[in-house]
């Protein structure tokens, strides 16, 4: 399968990149690791007139401690670097746990943290070749006007299927976004729309540059559990991230987030209330499991039945809480 034709840019600085973005807006696609974009381009899900490979912007690659602020991770930092970072493993455990489950080792060498955050939503009716999609009459997310997952509906339910965003939600991470008017910061919890075909709040002339893990989230225990069929390569069919702050005593702070079962990664709102002030035990964990399952609205966008994936969210949330307590 060949790629559609495009004009190619390789900016070396953020300014240069933003300039290209401003000039070409919707006709330009940003290429980072390429692990999702390039296969999607082969399938003609995207045929941008311009492709901008930003891997040459060196300042966006790396993990840096910013005293008083927290830890800053460049959007171009490969997931394998996040996974292997001793700092992340020690202080932001849930992110380490999530990063190491993404796809496969080779894909983590290529895929970036920024790319994982901006990952396109996925659906079995969407992530197919042009020829295939023609045979189903296309879908509401691309080239068509009907949804095969929820027939009659007008909303796209493609599932957000990245592993690190729920971890970042648990850490209350902030995203730095560069645009024509400079940089802006947005909490990751406000970055997603929960709409399958317009998943993130990023304007065409903007790009994600950095991720900031606040100091306040440092040292939280955490865990991430991922449902997939193979032990590697696969996108999540459900994922649960849990982070708790505990200093020998009861839980002081906690966040639980889920992925791959909605068009966005979502915080399980009531989980914090259920956990704070408690010691982690089977009962508390089970309560969180129920809450997580209530937040999950899986549909037939992937393998395994939605009903099953919802069940697993319940079990995995329980297990992730118990695991977070013990690491």
């Amino acid at each position, binding site marked *: 399968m060949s790629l559609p034709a495009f004009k190619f840019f390789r900016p070396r600085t953020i300014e240069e990149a933003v300039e290209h973005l401003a000039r070409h807006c919707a006709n330009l696609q940003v290429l980072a690791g390429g692990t999702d974009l390039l296969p999607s381009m082969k399938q003609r899900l995207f045929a941008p007139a311009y492709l901008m490979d930003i891997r040459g912007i060196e300042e966006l690659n790396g993990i840096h401690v910013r005293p008083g602020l927290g830890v800053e991770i460049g959007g171009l930092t490969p997931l394998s670097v996040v996974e292997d970072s001793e700092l992340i493993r020690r202080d932001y455990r849930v992110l380490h746990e999530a990063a190491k489950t993404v796809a496969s080792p080779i894909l983590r060498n290529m895929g970036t943290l920024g790319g994982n955050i901006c990952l396109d939503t996925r659906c*079995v009716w969407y992530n197919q070749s042009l020829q295939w999609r023609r045979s189903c009459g296309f879908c509401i997310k691309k080239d068509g006007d009907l949804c095969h997952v929820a027939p009659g509906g007008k909303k796209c339910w493609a599932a957000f299927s990245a592993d690190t965003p729920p971890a970042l939600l648990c850490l209350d991470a902030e995203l730095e976004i560069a645009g024509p008017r400079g940089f802006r910061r947005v909490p990751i919890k406000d970055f997603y729309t929960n709409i399958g075909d317009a998943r993130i709040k990023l304007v065409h002339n903007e790009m994600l540059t950095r991720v900031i893990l606040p100091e306040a989230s440092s040292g939280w225990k955490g865990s991430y559990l991922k449902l997939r069929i193979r*032990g590697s390569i696969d996108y999540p069919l459900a994922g649960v991230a849990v982070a708790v702050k505990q200093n020998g005593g009861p839980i002081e702070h906690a966040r639980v987030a889920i992925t791959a079962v909605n068009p966005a990664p979502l915080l399980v709102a009531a989980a914090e209330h259920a956990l704070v002030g408690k010691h982690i035990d089977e009962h508390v964990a089970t309560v969180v499991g129920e809450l997580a399952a209530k937040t999950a609205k899986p549909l037939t966008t992937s393998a395994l039945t939605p009903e099953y994936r919802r069940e697993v969210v319940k079990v995995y949330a329980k297990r992730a809480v118990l695991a977070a307590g013990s690491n």
Partner: protein
Amino acid sequence: MADFSIIGKRVALVDSAAKTTGQGKYADDLSLPGMLIGKILHSPYPHALVKKIDASRALALEGVVAVVTGPDAPNKYGILPVGHDETALAVEKVRYVGDNVACVVATSEAIAERALETIDVEYELLPAWFDPEDSMKAETDWIHPQRPNNVEKDYHHVFGDPDKGFAEADLVTEHRYIAAEVTHAAMEPHCTLASFEIDSLTGQPGRLTVWSSTQVPYYLQHKLSIVLELPMSQIRVIKPLVGGGFGGKSEVIPLEIIAAVAARKAQAPVKITYTREEVFWAHRGRPRTIIDLKTGVKRDGRITSVAAKVIQDGGAYCSYGVVTILYSGALLGALYDIPNIKYDGFRVLTNKPACGAMRGHGTVNVRFAFESQLDEIAVQLKIDPVVLRRRNLLKPPCVTVNNLRVQSYGLPECIEKVVERSQWTARKGKLPAGRGLGMACSHYVSGAANSIIRSDMPHSTVNIKIDRDGGVVVYTGASDIGQGSDTMVAQVVAEVLGISLARVKVVAADTDLTPIDIGSYSSRVTFMNGNASLRAAQDVKRKIAGAAARKMDCAPEDVIMRDDLVWKQGAFEPGSNGTGAESSAAAEKGTVQEVSGRVEGQTLRGSLQQKRKEEGPKDHMSFEEAVVSAIDFSGALSGTGSYAPPQDARGGAFKGAGVGPSPAYSYAAQVAEVSVDRETGEVTVHKVWAAHDCGRALNPVSVEGQVIGSVWMGMGQALQEEMVWKDGLLMNPTMLEYKSPSAVESPDVECIIVESVDPEGPFGAKEASEGSLAATIPAIANAIYDAVGIRLREAPFTPERVLAALRQMKREAKALEITRGADPTQPRTFREHGGSTWYKGKGPQRHEQDPARREHHAEAVAGDD
């Protein structure tokens, strides 16, 4: 045990360096000057008449050389003589989503792909059939008009007296089992390069050469001849390295024909390589199967009768289907002693890609049902599953009730070995909660005793040529597809001639150079081509030994050939001035130096004759020397050997009796250890002990590789592989979504080789590449039962099915919600949950947004910067 110098040794595949260095060439690695690229347009509809194809826009594109459509090559073909129902490209109608409509030939892949988007095809939709049980009821709109009710073929066999057998049984167990469709997913996508050469006499395109990823060069040559209306002598098929087959390349795949037709029309070499999606559409995998199985046993576990009704969802073309449905019935026999068998098999057409032969052809899904049911019976009778199987062993040599001749039979030893290694007796039933052991057996043919094109020709022929340099070239039609047949041939020849492997060069699978061999499928190659190689080597050995005998003044029977030396028995002891192979190799080196003029034939002969005169009759000589004397005595040195299965192995005379008989059967027994997560239904296979009776392991590394690979593939089918269909649309035509197992979840497999030494196999060898697969699925099913007490009768055992069954067992309300109402312990029919509205509506053509309808954005791009 016989004393061999090459056979039974662990040797690297002769082409392993080509593979590990990337130097070896697969079809897609080849290119020719002026080569064009072909891309195929596929049907978006499952069943439709093709009213009109307008390729004018495509032909107008710069770089497009030709567009090929059905009328360019309308002759029908098919792998089976009874199933000539395919054309290269759709002639009148399309029969599945992905069926072949047109082919664009262009100067690059990108141009060809763009051109596909501009071909306008007008279709008239027809009602489509997706479920085999519905399809069988069709009164109209048959997929092939000559196949009423969409039944490709049905067979109804009765052996012994099944009714009486059931009447005599103390226990009769009956259930429906269902297995999902799986596919080969060989790592190499199919590829064909076709090129015509200009005939010197006519000045017109003459001979065709095709390089193709095929398991069956001879059949490809045969079908190309039918479609192109060229004599077979004008067609040369060359098989380069093939990146895995598993049956998926064991018949002629549309691109192989299309590439040749396209090369003819474009008047240039054309290469077509399938995308991964096209590989899934080409398919020919293992069909979805419904098995209604009934087994009667006496109280002691002796089987009295078996009745099976099998329905296979065969897809839109016959392919190997008639053979598949026959294997499913025939191989109910030859594993256990079953006195009475009733079999009803239905191969049904549906509007989906054609199913064909896949590793363990026809036997796998039925074996899953059978071995699961045996396990159920063992539970009901409170007999150890091992004991139950031992009570039903055959007593070879024998002929089964369905006329299968069984000679070597290593099953008892296979069972013994896996029981011992897995510590079955000590551990069964005593593992921690959620963990269990399961056992199952299986078997497979070592090639079919009757070829699909009935004739009296040998199934394999091998030629050997030896020149004065002592280099041995073997010409074999055997198709190495990674299983190591080139190495097997080299080993057999080297063993017979008593030479080192390095001396043997194998030229394989090139129809111009190598004699007809019917291909690499049904695990026939070691047995049949191995036997032909053995005979060819013996033929040439006779000539060498005869010449050597004259030189050594002894009878030919007294000539020993081994370790690159030839000597007179009793008069010479190789390695007498040392021991073992090293010293004889050193001796050989010395001899080689002595006759260092051997590249100069005349000089060599002169020096040798001189030497002989001086020394008088000798008691030993180098292999080269023996070869030279044989050539001197009798001229060109060559040998030939062929193999045809013996008459008494060819089965009965009833309709359909041709499929199932084999000169020898392999046997396998396995124990699987699994654990089941009771909360999520996830199954982990920790270990599989796999014993396989391959007669004799010619190369243990290869045998182990084949057995482990089979077990692993069976594990994939048992737990995670499945072609997911929704109204004829394949939902997972990618390596990302078709879940071929990764290294992480792949179990530890311990392979135990059992050698029953078959009386007719080459050095006693039988098959090793397929027979083990079928046991793995029921072994895992039975282990799951042992672990958590659920009996899954629908494969694969996905976590949702396992969880639903667990809850059903605990009588939880709404237990089956997670499988949307389907009970995996009592499956009824194929389910296609989800599903879309596309087919019920007007279909693809309603969409204004189809990119093909929009102007290409190239202009916009060009106008921008």
